[in-house]
Each structure stands twice: as structure tokens, then as C-alpha cells.
């Protein structure tokens, strides 16, 4: 019997053969392998502190987690950083700002990305030990399905749309089309920004709006639903949706830099305490002029260009 099986040469089935022949041995060896791997991990994280900051020959690992809005930029930064520092391993996980802040507070990652200040998610004694590094600015635009026939709204109209006072686009000069609101969950950082700076703190009407958290899906929702309105970060804007001017101000980074358009927020990278030499090198790179071009290419704004400032809550 066994001979027949051995003849079958298909890599994918190797485990079955062994499983049948010597299941227990396999389990033992897996456990052994796992513990060996664990040992190697310890060795790896040990490298981090041993990294040298001199002469650009950095080595070690950087683990980043958090904000999904910042993930693409962080990934791009990681790739570029590796070009000059090939011995450094950088991995970026999205998972949400809450996860990022929680992880960095627990020290399970080296950098935690967040759309909001740590104080807004964590208890104050946990947030106290975190050090904020603002890496860029992100603008949030109200977007509508092109069939709405509207390109500009006043701030009051925007508020009335999202609170459910205005229910048809013709009330704001558009087509006779019912308004469909697509919201984000209350835990979302983008929603917090939009509520604070676009709606003047007014609560959106949750019971009557659709909800979507993921920006890519949200954009698809708006693109295919006539009369829909939502808000997404500038980095997700494309031709399928129509960004709305607010009080005749176009949602662009120029207008954010000059202070004319105020629906924006900082993107944060938090470290727990002062960053290690390696993390510092990475953060310096993200904030450097070399990386500025990538930031604007990916649809984010430059912190250094900002003529207006905001302070933490």
C-alpha cells in the first residue's frame, strides 16, 4: 500500500502521505519546528537594538500597524526605505486606527498608525506614554454620484443633507433625485473628522443611512448608486465619483494648505516612548523631502506646507 502512495509524486500531497504513515511523528516535528521558529523570532527582534545608525547600513525589523487610510502610504515608505536599507525588514498591517494604537500601547508593534489623536481612542494614562509623529495631512471630500447634478454645496446644506433635513438633490439645485446617504461607522476616524469639521459637530442620521467602512467599497457604492452621497479621503478620489465644492472651495491640497478648505486631519505615526534608532531613521525618512513627492503622488498632503495648524484635543 505505502509503496503505491510513495509513487505518487505531487508535492501538494506530501503531507497526506506522511499524515497517514506517521501522524504522530509529524505532529512532534511540527511542534519542534514551531519552537525552533519561535527561538529564531526572539533572535530577530534582538537585532533591532543592535542596529547601527551609522553609514546607512541599518538592519533589523520594523513592524507597523493601524490606520487603513495610511496603509498604502506606509507601505510605499517601507518599500522605498528598503531600497537604501536592504537589510531592514518593514511590514505594514492595516487593521484600523484602534488596533494600531492598541498595539503600540501594548508594544506589540514598533509604530502605530492612526487617523486620530491617541487621546481620542485610548485612556489618558495609556496615551501618555505614546509619542506622536505627524507624517502628513489627509483631506476628506464629500462625494456624490455624478447623477446628482450638484457640484457645490454650502456648509449648511451639507449639514442638512447628512442630518436628513434635505432629502432630494433638487433642493440644493441638482436633479430631481432622492438623496441616499452612505455613512461610516461611528468608530471610524474619517467620520470623526467629517462630523467635526464639515457638519459642525452635528450627528448624522444613522437609522436612515447606509453604512460602509472600507473606502474602496464605499467609492464603489457611491459610483453605482444614483443620488448617493458620502465622504472619502482625497487619496481614494477618482473619476467614478464627484467631489463636491464646499462654499465654492474646491477640495484640493492647495486650499487645505492655505486654510480655505478645513475638512482635513493629520495622519499620525505613534511610537511608545522615544523611537529606537532604526524607527527614528524610518520616521525621519517619511518626513523627509525625498519622500514628499511620494506623499503627494499617493494623494496625501504635506505637513510642511501647512499654513494653518491644529493642536491635539
Amino acid at each position, binding site marked *: 500500500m505505502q509503496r503505491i502512495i510513495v509513487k505518487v509524486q505531487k508535492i501538494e500531497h506530501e503531507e497526506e502521505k506522511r499524515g497517514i504513515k506517521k501522524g*504522530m511523528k509529524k505532529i512532534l516535528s511540527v511542534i519542534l519546528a514551531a519552537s525552533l521558529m519561535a527561538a529564531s523570532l526572539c533572535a530577530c527582534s534582538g537585532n533591532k537594538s543592535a542596529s547601527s545608525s551609522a553609514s546607512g547600513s541599518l538592519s533589523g525589523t520594523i513592524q507597523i500597524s493601524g490606520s487603513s487610510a495610511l496603509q498604502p502610504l506606509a507601505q510605499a515608505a517601507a518599500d522605498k526605505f528598503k531600497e537604501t536599507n536592504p537589510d531592514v525588514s518593514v511590514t505594514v498591517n492595516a487593521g*484600523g486606527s484602534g488596533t494600531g494604537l492598541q498595539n503600540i500601547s501594548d508594544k506589540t508593534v514598533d509604530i502605530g498608525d492612526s487617523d486620530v489623536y491617541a487621546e481620542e*481612542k485610548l485612556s489618558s494614562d495609556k496615551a501618555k506614554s505614546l509619542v506622536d509623529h505627524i507624517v502628513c495631512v489627509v483631506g476628506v471630500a464629500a462625494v456624490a454620484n455624478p447623477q446628482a447634478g450638484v457640484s457645490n454645496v454650502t456648509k449648511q446644506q451639507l449639514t442638512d443633507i447628512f442630518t436628513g433635513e434635505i432629502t432630494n438633490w433638487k433642493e440644493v439645485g441638482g436633479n430631481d433625485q432622492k438623496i*441616499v446617504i452612505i455613512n461610516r461607522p461611528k468608530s471610524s*476616524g474619517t467620520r470623526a473628522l467629517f462630523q467635526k469639521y464639515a457638519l459642525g459637530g452635528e450627528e448624522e442620521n444613522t437609522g436612515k443611512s447606509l*453604512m460602509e467602512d472600507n473606502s474602496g*467599497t464605499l467609492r*464603489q457604492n457611491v459610483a453605482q*448608486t444614483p443620488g448617493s452621497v458620502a465622504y472619502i479621503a482625497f487619496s481614494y478620489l477618482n473619476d467614478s465619483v464627484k467631489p463636491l465644492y464646499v462654499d465654492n472651495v474646491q477640495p484640493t491640497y492647495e486650499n487645505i494648505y492655505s486654510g480655505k478648505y478645513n475638512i482635513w486631519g493629520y495622519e499620525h505615526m505613534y511610537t511608545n516612548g522615544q523611537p529606537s534608532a532604526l524607527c527614528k531613521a524610518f520616521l525621519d525618512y517619511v518626513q523627509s523631502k525625498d519622500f514628499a513627492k511620494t506623499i503627494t503622488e499617493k494623494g496625501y498632503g504635506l505637513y510642511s506646507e501647512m499654513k494653518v495648524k491644529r493642536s491635539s484635543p
Partner: protein
Amino acid sequence: MKLKREKWKKEYLGRTAVTLAGLFIIVLTLAIGAFLFYKGTATFTSDHHTVAEFLFSSNWEPAQQGSGGKVGAAIFIVGSIIISAFALLLATPFSIAAALFMTEISPSAGRRILQPAVEIFVGIPSVVYGWVGLTVLVPFLAKVFNLAYGYSVLAGAIVLAVMISPTITSVAADAIRSVPNEYREASYGLGSTRWQMIYRVVIPAAMPGILTGVVLGLARAFGEALAVAMVIGKMQAFPKGLLSPTTNLTAEITASMGNTAEGSEWNNALWAMALLLLIISFLFIVIIRLIGKKGADKT
């Protein structure tokens, strides 16, 4: 003598190994259960909400920091139940018919074509189902029913039905296959047609197995997260009908788990939802058991 001793050694070694594997399953289940119980009860122990509020209130406004929010999850629970129930209504007749075809009508075609088809269905990631649902099914429903948008209980139910039908089909087919051939021969011997044989003999005899498949499908539907969330609109309101949007337990867990910090009232409430999912799947097991027992009593 020595040979015999060696034989016994082999016997007991193998026996111990497989027994340990059996016990491992118990340990694993208890570990997951205990862990979810520990995480899921924090809403009630440290945030001092009542179980009644969680189950029956529709006021869902948990606090991200500190406490004082509302954790009524009724909308999510009702949404989960309604969507899964409709998915089951859609999937069951199709799946049983497909299973009958595979076993009674054309076993060879069943084995060569349908069985692999079922396996491929299982391997398609749920996010692909969800995305096809979002870009094809949702606009289609909006057009057909002349709605503002197609995000609805129906869309969720259809996507789920497609996803759970392989499970029901394969379990039902197994059950039908295991009906002894003597039953069929006896039925034919009495002069019945093939359909009469299937309808009066095979289906009743395989009923417990078929129902097991149905309940397993229901459990699968209840726990599915990524695909359904894309097409139901996630509106935080009770559904007004088949064509209106709503939300469910898994959609809220996936949307907010990453955005809330561990230990916050909101995060705890999400864990309570996860615990509820476990309890519900356990209830399904009990139901399967009762069905099985009834089937056994009958025969």
C-alpha cells in the same frame, strides 16, 4: 513471545496517539469557549450592562472611551436571523435537488462534474462572492425592483444561498447515499416509479442527514462575515421588508473591531456579539441533535 510484546506496544502506542487527538479536540473547543466567555462577558461584568439590554434593546451607541453608552444589539441579531433564514429558504430546495441528482439520477455525472463543482464553490473566497454581489447583483436588483439602491436583505440572502448550497448539497448527498440499497429495491419491487421511490422512501430515510446539512448551512450563513457585509447596506435599522437594507452581527464585528481599542466599552460589546455567535452555533448543534434523535426513534 517478543514479537507479540512488540505488537502490543504498537497497538497501545497508536491507540494512545489517536485518543490524545480526540482529547485535543475537547481541549480546543473548551479553550475557545472559555476564552470567548471571558472576553464576551466583560460587557456585563465590567461595563454593567444587562443581558436583556444587549439582546432586546435596539439602541446601539457604545462609548469608545470610558462607559455610559448603550449596547442594545437587537437590530444586528434580527438582521442576522432574517438574512440567514431567507438564505436557507432559497438554498435548501436547490441543494436537495442537486444532491438527489448526484445520487439517484446520474451518479456518474454527479461524481465527475457536480462534486468537483461543489469543491470549487467552497474554495472561492467569500470576498469574491461579495464583490460580484456588490457590482452585479445589487445594481440588478435595483433595476428589476425599481429601487433607489439594491442593498437589501434579499441581496444578502442570495449571496449567502450561493455560498451555503455546497455545504448542504454535499452533506445531503452523503445522507442519501447511505440509505441502504435494499430500501430502493423494495420500493421498486412494489412497483413504484423512480420519483415515488425517491419521494416516499429515500428522502424520509435520509431526512435526519439532510436536516443536519441544512442546519450546518444555517450555521455557516450565520457566521459569514465579509460577503454579506458588502451587499446588505449595513443600515442600522430593522429591515422593513425583503428589499430594505439592514445590518448584522458579523458586519458590525468586522467594521468596528479594528477601530476600537481593546477593553473599551465598544470593543467589549463586540466581543459579546462574538460570544453570542458561538452560543447561537451551539444552539444549532442542539437542534441537529434533536433532529437526529427523532430520526433514530423513527427507524
